[in-house]
């Protein structure tokens, strides 16, 4: 079981409170986590990664513990602590100020 923490705007969009708990098929990777997340919450498609290229949106970052996973490949294994559910996988809106 993987725990995912979404930024507030995406929690609102998906109508979820707190962490999302996902059962992921196969190895725990960014791709498998987002596939499971988007299957359960289709309205999140395109908001974290691009519909077609599956690339991370430029102003979205991924963290686990104190580790920045934003630049890891989509098929790289996630840290054991995330794969085992000890640590949540954090989806974070970049600190970009804004208007």
């Amino acid at each position, binding site marked *: 079981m993987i725990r995912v923490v979404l*930024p507030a705007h995406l929690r609102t*969009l998906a109508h979820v409170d707190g962490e999302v708990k996902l059962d992921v098929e196969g190895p725990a990777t960014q791709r498998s986590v987002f596939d499971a997340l988007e299957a359960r919450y289709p309205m999140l498609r*395109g*908001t974290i990664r691009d*519909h*077609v290229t599956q690339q991370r949106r430029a102003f979205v970052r991924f963290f686990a513990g104190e580790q920045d996973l934003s630049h890891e490949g989509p098929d790289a294994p996630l840290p054991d602590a995330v794969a085992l559910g000890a640590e949540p996988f954090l989806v974070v809106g970049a600190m*970009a100020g804004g208007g």
Partner: protein
Amino acid sequence: MSKVRILVGTRKGAFVLTSDGTRKRWKVSGPHFGGWEIYHVKGSPADPNRLYASQSSGWFGQVIQRSNDGGKTWEPVGNKFVYDGVPGTHLWYDGTPRPWEFARVWHLEPSLTDPDTLYAGIQDAALFRSVDGGQTWQELPGMRGHASAPSWQPGAGGLCLHTIVLDPSHPGRIFIAISAAGVFRSDDAGTTWRPMNRGLKSEQIPDPTAEVGHCVHRIAMHRSRPGVLFMQKHWDVMRSDDAGESWREVSGNLPTDFGFPIDVHAHEPETIYVVPIKSDSEHYPPEGKLRVYRSRTGGNEWEALTKGLPQRNCYVNVLRDAMAVDALDPCGVYFGTTGGQVYASADAGDRWAPIVRDLPSVVSVEVQTLP
């Protein structure tokens, strides 16, 4: 008694303003989608309880929301806008080629007859259509596939397809406008397109009378007379009496012929409204006086409408989709400002009062007249 519902898109959410037909007391609902930019909210003419909203964010991209109950509740629908085929390039500000890239939906235009069919005008400029209530979107590729498209350049707001006008008496006839390409018309439901810019003159471009390349800000039509179009261009207020085939200037005595919105009175097809704005680049009302100008002669002769509008120290802007009229008698006219005010006139513009003063910066205003 009739009711009026105003759909307001702002930089930080959507608001729904409602009143009975007297238009004296207003109820404000919102913010819906707080924190997101709402470029446009519009209702279906065929089912007024069916609304669509374009919601976007620099962080999380595009979302389309749909309501089946007049804006009380909403559900996200499809947000996948993928260009047909290999997108190719347009020109960037510096004249170099740049690949087409989806940024956001500027304008949603529901079909006049089918609540599940609607059009989306997007940046970078293209026209999309959904026939399943917004669940899936397909590009009408003939628009972006026009031979002139590789030469299109963005306006200050980006290369956006911001205006979609459906002709009620010629099924299949669609007008669109792009900044800064100009007006195009399709007579075959969006399959093929022709530029409709003859008579436009833009001194800022290398060939001021070019077939394509004009920064058209907005076009408007009266339902009863779809062959007559009115245009607010980057400079100049224009008029066409032949469904866009040719245009002539009707700026007349306006204090400045720059501005963004233009709209037509619900019952008087020769009565039109603009909001003159100072430019280049200032983009606030001349002399700090917020004035709507009305022409009862289809242009050329304009009168300033000032009662109830701030006549000093006012430096807001009124954006291209931020003016609309209701269908009551007398006609109500509404507009929103970048300062967060939504002003209403229940007497065709003679007197104005703010409905709300302190919303986030207003991007769009649409009005529904309900039984």
